[in-house]
């Protein structure tokens, strides 16, 4: 059984290599290997359901053991990683056909599996070296996936990798500081060392580690890479990035705050606000800001994938907000939302990818009316946006409810309001999304559009059904989460298959009842709608515009600048861009560096020799001054 943990880690990597080799034989061999190996990973992952392994040593480096471990929390993330990767690979088979160069595809599948393997490694890691190693592998392999998307994606990928590397190195310093203290980076040893360390040391390490995770999780103000990278990446890659990759940041935060540092310890060494350690409280605010600002930005987007990308920033804000509450309910909500977001955001990106596959554009103002042409995709996307907006009975509702409830219990009114604003804003942008893509007038050039091939529909449908399953049966996920959180010292929350029973301090929720109410209401409205037909069925063009009859070649339905008036209201907020600040500093650095490099490496031999003279003079002066260097 111990071996198989290493096997689980190795499977995607071996699969990646075999995929590349298989691509030399035939493209179907390659596709088959890719699917089989990701399926195998899912299967191996399933074996670890609700099991806990502590410390399978797989190597040792510089006196620190390299450990693999698993517990229900890691299983949750493993589940996200492997399941979404499998679906993405299946979706890719048809979607990436447009790429003519077979070698590019070979490396594409290889990198997909490598990214999956790296993320499996991060989750399974039982020590910080393993964690950091796979973290870096994940950064550069996913970078290669992003830049597969064409010319614009190169700039996006470049920004992504540079920011990732900066974040990773911030983590690196913290890890090295810990290593200097303990000489063993296994989580339990680190936790032990932290419990005896000085407060300033703890705060420094935690802050540095958090910076690394914030970059990957795209928490404001370190989110600037995400909108570009997620929107410019190839369609099948976006769900992997948005759904899974940024969750690694959330996982990292969870490990740091609840695995390495416990809430009690945190409370002891720093002041508390609203009974939350100040560090976590700051993180809560950052997360809340992410929620609100990214929602506003998402509302103003014209590009469907960019809209979803900003939405991801906003939704990961909920995850981080939940994790940062420090209470059982909040953390459980955050973890559950991580799963839910992976499902519905994966669904939305795949559905939008399907539209892009057929129409070739992701500019929302050029699309519209596709509902009749692509009904399956429409239905799936509808489910996705309902889930995202947090409407019962789909899955986004339960986790958001848990986070709200946690905030209410902590009486954090401002944060609660911000979370609500984000949720309301989500209605605006998801409505925009579905309207611009599927409703309204169908542009003539898309008359012949069909729904996507079956291989692309399967992943979409699996995810769409998951939104319902996890929405109505939140207990399925809570089972894992609660069991896992027990290991990290949280008081378990009561739950059942349909939600949370009454009579506990947690508040109560039974989704099946809400669903039943909603369904009843829906059926009632539907019956009324059917029974009392006061409306007349008209065709889309049975209408007037400026006193003229409408014809299909006349575009009457504009979806550009959809929320323009709203945009005017929030304009002052949008004009503040942290990215401009970064660019300013980068440009300043570039100009400064260029100027001084030219002044130093002049190409003039005389200058060069004077450097030698200066160095010797300094040494001579040091001797004359009595052997002191300063």
């Amino acid at each position, binding site marked *: 059984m111990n071996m198989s943990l290493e096997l689980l880690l190795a499977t995607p990597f071996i699969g990646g290599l075999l995929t590349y080799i298989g691509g030399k034989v035939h493209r179907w061999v390659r596709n088959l290997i890719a699917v089989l190996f990701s399926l195998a990973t899912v299967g191996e992952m399933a074996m670890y359901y609700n099991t806990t392994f502590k410390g399978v040593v797989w190597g040792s480096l510089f006196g620190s053991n390299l450990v693999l471990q698993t517990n229900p929390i890691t299983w949750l993330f493993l589940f996200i990683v492997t399941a979404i990767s499998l679906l993405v690979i299946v979706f890719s088979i048809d979607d990436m056909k447009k790429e003519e160069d077979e070698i590019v595809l070979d490396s594409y599948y290889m990198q997909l599996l490598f990214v999956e393997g790296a993320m499996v490694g991060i989750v399974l890691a039982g020590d910080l070296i393993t964690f950091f190693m796979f973290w870096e592998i994940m950064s550069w392999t996913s970078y290669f996936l992003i830049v597969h998307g064409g010319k614009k994606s*190169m700039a996006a990928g470049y920004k992504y990798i540079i920011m990732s590397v900066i974040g990773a190195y911030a983590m690196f310093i913290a890890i090295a500081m810990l290593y200097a203290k303990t000489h063993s980076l296994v989580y339990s040893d680190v936790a032990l060392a932290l419990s005896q360390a000085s407060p300033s040391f703890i705060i420094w390490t935690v802050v540095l580690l958090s910076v690394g995770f914030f970059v990957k999780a795209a928490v404001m103000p370190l989110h600037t890479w995400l909108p570009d990278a997620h929107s410019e990446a190839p369609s099948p890659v976006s769900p992997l990035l948005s759904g899974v990759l940024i969750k690694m940041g959330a996982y990292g935060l969870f490990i740091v705050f609840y695995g390495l540092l416990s809430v009690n310890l945190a409370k002891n060494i720093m002041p508390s606000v609203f009974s939350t350690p100040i560090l976590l409280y700051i993180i809560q605010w950052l997360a809340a800001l992410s929620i609100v600002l990214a929602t506003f930005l998402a509302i103003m987007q014209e590009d469907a994938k960019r809209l979803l990308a900003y939405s991801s920033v906003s939704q990961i804000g909920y995850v981080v907000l939940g994790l940062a509450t420090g209470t059982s309910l909040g953390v459980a909500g955050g973890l559950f939302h991580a799963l839910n977001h992976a499902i519905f955001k994966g669904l939305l990106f795949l559905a939008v990818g399907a539209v892009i596959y057929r129409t070739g554009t992701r500019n929302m103002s050029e699309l519209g009316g596709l509902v009749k042409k692509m009904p399956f995709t429409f239905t799936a996307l509808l489910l996705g946006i309902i889930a995202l907006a947090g409407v019962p009975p789909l899955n986004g509702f339960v986790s958001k409810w848990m986070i709200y409830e946690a905030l209410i219990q902590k009486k954090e009114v401002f944060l609660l309001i911000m979370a609500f604003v984000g949720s309301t804003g989500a209605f605006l942008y998801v409505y925009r999304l579905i309207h611009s893509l599927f409703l309204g007038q169908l542009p003539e050039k898309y008359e012949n559009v069909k729904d996507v091939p079956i291989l692309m529909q399967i992943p979409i449908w699996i995810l769409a059904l998951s939104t319902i399953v996890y929405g109505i049966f939140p207990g399925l996920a809570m089972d894992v989460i609660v069991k896992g959180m027990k290991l990290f010292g949280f008081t378990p929350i009561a739950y059942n298959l349909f939600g949370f029973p009454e009579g506990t301090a947690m508040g109560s929720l039974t989704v099946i009842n809400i669903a039943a109410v909603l369904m009843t209401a829906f059926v009632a409205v539907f019956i009324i709608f059917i029974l009392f037909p006061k409306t007349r069925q008209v065709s889309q063009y049975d209408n007037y515009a400026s006193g003229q009859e409408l014809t299909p070649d006349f575009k009457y339905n504009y979806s550009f600048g959809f929320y323009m008036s709203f945009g005017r209201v929030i304009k002052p907020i949008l004009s503040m861009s942290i990215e401009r600040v970064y660019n300013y500093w980068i440009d300043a650095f570039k100009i400064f560096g260029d100027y001084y490099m030219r002044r130093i490496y002049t190409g003039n031999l005389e200058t060069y020799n004077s450097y030698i003279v200066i160095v010797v003079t300094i040494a001579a002066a040091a001797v004359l001054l009595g052997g002191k260097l300063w």
Partner: protein
Amino acid sequence: MVNLANPILLIVIPLLFVFLIAFSSAFSKSAAKYLPIIAFGINVVVAMLLVPEVLKNGLVLSTTAGFKPPIAIDMIVDKLALFLVIIASVLGFVVSIYNVAYIDEEPEEKFYALFTLLITGIIWMIITGDLFNLFVAFEVTSIAAFGLVGFHRDKGSVEAGFKYLVMGAIGGSLLLVGIIMLYAATGTLNIIDVAQKSAELTFQQKFLAYALIFVGLGIEGALFPLNAWLPDAHPAAPSSVSSILSGIMTTAAIYAIIRITNIIFDYNQIYLFLMFFALLTLIFGEIAAYYQKDIKRMLAYSTIGQTGLFFFAFTIHSTNGLQGAFLQIINHSVSKSMLFLVVGAMIVQVGSRNIEDFVGLGRKMKVSSFFLAIGMFSLMGMPPFFGFWSKLKIIFAALQHSNALMIGSVVIILLMSVVEGAYFFKLLQMMFFGKAEQDREIKEASFGMLVPVVILGFILLFISFYPTPVLDFAHQAASDLMNKNYINLALKLGGL
């Protein structure tokens, strides 16, 4: 029977082949092409034979002229030296293979002779146990390098060669003056003898001599601000030569600094002084590399940066730091030599050194580009490549001393790593994902040039995925150096 595990053979055999090349050029043109391969093949074998001896005794000592040092010159191979000798011999062997396909310009036999002499000089610098002999080796290396840098005889390379000549000559003279000062102070030239006899001298008395030796070697070892010749010379030289210059020659000079500092000038103040140089070297190398349009110049500046990094690791002055330095030396030697070889092959195909012209090469020269990417990843310190282990070790070692200076240095190192990532990724994405405007006739590099690249690439991959023996060996070498086993064992083996 002759004991083949004799350090002196490491120098003498290639030197014999240098003269053989000169001799054979009188009647056969093509013999010169293959003689260096044989020479360094033998060297690799000798180095391998030395491994068990060194592991057993910690050190192998060999005298000349039948006298004991300090009367005569001795050669000492300890773990650290062996480590570098193996790198130098393997690189020499591999790059000699590359030369057969790469060099097509007259006068070939002179090139091969100088090339062999260059690597001989490098090995000589590494294993000599005598200060004046070190100077001689330094001169052998420099003289060979001057000629090789100017090999193309175009305007750029002659100018670069001239700059290098002037600065190298200044460096040589300063080194000589420094050695003379030590000789004046102690009356002996053997490094260990000097160390023992100069023990009673004060820091102030020794410092000037040390500073001159440091500056002299630092010019060759590419330490800022003494390295200004390097960005001109490395690009101007033929790629195989750049590969040796970048891969092992600067390293050998740094090794000499490490050795002399450790044995003769082991003062804590000095390490602070050196750290200052190391950090400046790192900063200026990496930042300057970012702006380069010429790919070889970019790699040359990156060499400066890497030198700064492993020199910094040395100046941490702890076993861990030294281990990190040695690991980084291996990483840099293997990766950077490989990069220069690949880039050389690419330049042959593209016909330009401008980075913009490398657009889309990833699809045309797949094998070369693959190894280029691996080398760059390793230099950036991305896991799972070897550079990751060495960077990990260096940062860990630096933060063992948690004072503000070290933390500041670590921040600088990591920032410079980001800059390094910035220019390497810029190149990589251009090569793999950029599309050339017009279709060019570009083929994969010829077989003869690919073989050495693949050998180095597999060495890199091997040590990346199975680093344990290298890590252990580096650790032993480092602790030997810290414990001054060089002196102790040499004395025991009759080094004096």
